[in-house]
């Protein structure tokens, strides 16, 4: 985890300028929508990576945090007229608390046992929400058409504000991940990922640090959930609480490179356009073709480069030096 050189800083500035100018070059809604999804899934993959890539907890239940975020802010807005920005924070906190409550009994589960428990967690939340009358049950929630403003977190005339808000969210989550990776926490997470015994023998409170990882991940994922609700303005269990979303988050992270800061974002940049474009172009021919292309990509990467695209890039960079 070395310091940044001039080259890296320059590259970062160029990428940022490109991202900021993107919606001015591509003015149609579809490319902007795809980029918003890239950012949103990128953020969730970054959040997953803190838990899965660093701390070694392979979660297939991230959709529960996403759904909790989306439902909390929407429910509070509809029922109590709570501002969505406040709802975003409350949703994040509730997701973190739920993560704590679920994570604690799972604190000794490792590897595939944790993965299975996390699938169950996601499915429990989906079933619960599908039957919970207060929050719309299977019919879901429709958000009120408030006036367009940043304060209301709602925009009708253009996707631009959503684009920039989601970009800022993504950058924020990268900042959090950078802080985690380069701090004491990051080292401890990686020790826990290696083995609980090695962590304990270094004086690491394994249960506590795992819970911290879950809570950070849950909070960020819930933020993406609130964003999604404000962006689509409608949510039901079938759109925000289904297992394929969790799977997609894991695939994006793995493809991009779990355990690196930027890997998951690269994964989103590659997979989300593939997913959206194939869905739009081939979707009407029966669902599944997009998932097949997906599967093929994942297979190729995991066979030839288990460290993901990020591992591929850093490998090439090393050879060029």
């Amino acid at each position, binding site marked *: 985890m070395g310091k940044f050189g001039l080259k890296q800083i320059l590259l970062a500035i160029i990428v940022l300028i490109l991202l900021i100018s993107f919606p001015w070059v591509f003015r149609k809604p579809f490319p902007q929508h795809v980029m918003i999804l890239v950012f949103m899934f990128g953020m969730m993959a970054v959040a997953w990576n803190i838990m899965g890539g660093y701390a070694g907890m392979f979660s297939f239940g991230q959709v529960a945090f996403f759904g909790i975020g989306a439902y909390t802010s929407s429910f509070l807005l509809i029922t109590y007229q709570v501002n969505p920005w406040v709802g975003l924070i409350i949703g994040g906190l509730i997701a973190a608390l739920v993560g704590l409550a679920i994570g604690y009994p799972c604190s000794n589960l490792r590897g595939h046992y944790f993965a299975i428990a996390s699938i169950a967690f996601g499915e429990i939340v989906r079933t619960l929400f599908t039957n919970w009358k207060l929050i719309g049950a299977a019919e879901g929630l429709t958000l009120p058409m408030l006036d367009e403003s940043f304060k209301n977190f709602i925009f009708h005339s253009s996707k631009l504000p959503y684009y920039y808000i989601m970009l800022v969210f993504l950058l924020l989550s990268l900042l959090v991940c950078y802080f985690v990776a380069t701090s004491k926490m990051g080292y401890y997470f990686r020790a826990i990922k290696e083995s609980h015994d*090695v962590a304990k*023998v270094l*004086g690491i409170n394994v249960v506590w640090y795992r819970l911290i990882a879950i809570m950070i991940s849950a909070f960020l994922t819930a933020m993406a959930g609130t964003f999604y609700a404000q962006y689509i303005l409608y949510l039901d269990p079938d759109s925000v609480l289904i297992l394929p979303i969790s799977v997609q988050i894991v695939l994006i992270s793995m493809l991009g490179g779990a355990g690196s800061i930027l890997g998951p974002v690269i994964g989103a940049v590659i997979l989300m356009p593939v997913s959206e474009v194939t869905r739009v172009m081939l979707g009407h021919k029966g669902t599944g073709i997009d998932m097949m292309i997906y599967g093929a990509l994942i297979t190729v990467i995991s066979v030839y480069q288990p460290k993901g695209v990020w591992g591929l890039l850093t490998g090439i960079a090393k050879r060029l030096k």
Partner: protein
Amino acid sequence: MKSPLFLEVQRVTKRFGGLLANENIDFTVKEGEIVSIIGPNGAGKTTLFNCITGFYHPSSGKVFFRGSDISRRRADAICKMGIARTFQIVQVISDMTVLENVVTAALLRYTKVARATEKAEEVLAFTGLLEKEEALGIDLTIADKKRLEVSMALATQPTLLMLDESMAGLTRVELRGMIDLIKKIRSKGMTLVIVEHVMEAVMEISDRVIVLNSGKKIMEGVPQEVVQNKEVIQAYLGEKYSAVS
């Protein structure tokens, strides 16, 4: 006032179902001593290690470290109190560099990574791994892995260091290096408890030797006394006293 004993193991028993892995084991360690625990395979040495370091809790009996009862504490809390250990099957973080491994250990005493890195460099210079600090844990030889594991233990800044077979499977040259390292660690005032099969090393470095057989302590004494004891020789029946020479 009499100062409490450094480490005191009182009638420790560990049962796994019907198996008695440790039975009423008593012994003490004074500050600055090197005490070796020997015994044939399955004698209960590693179980005893686990009972002292919090990886197991004794079924009955107590362990006192500097006067406080640690027999019910968690492993990480015991490490924080100043007992570090290594494992029989060497445990390092395989996708971290040597330096990162030791930094992770040093972070027990520091919050800032920069400060822990300074400490880690210092430890690596002491253990002679500094020139390999960029190598990944997974790429090291067994000897270097064991050396790294000792470095990690030292970086947690313990007052009691417990080594579980740190010399098994080493070549003669590597063995010499490890013995020298242990002597060097001791000269800094460290107290050591070691489980070891390599009798050559045990004879050379131990102040006292404790012999376990079938979960019980059968003998305790200075190395010379122990190797001449009939019961000990019987316990090792078939095994030569010096496994190396």
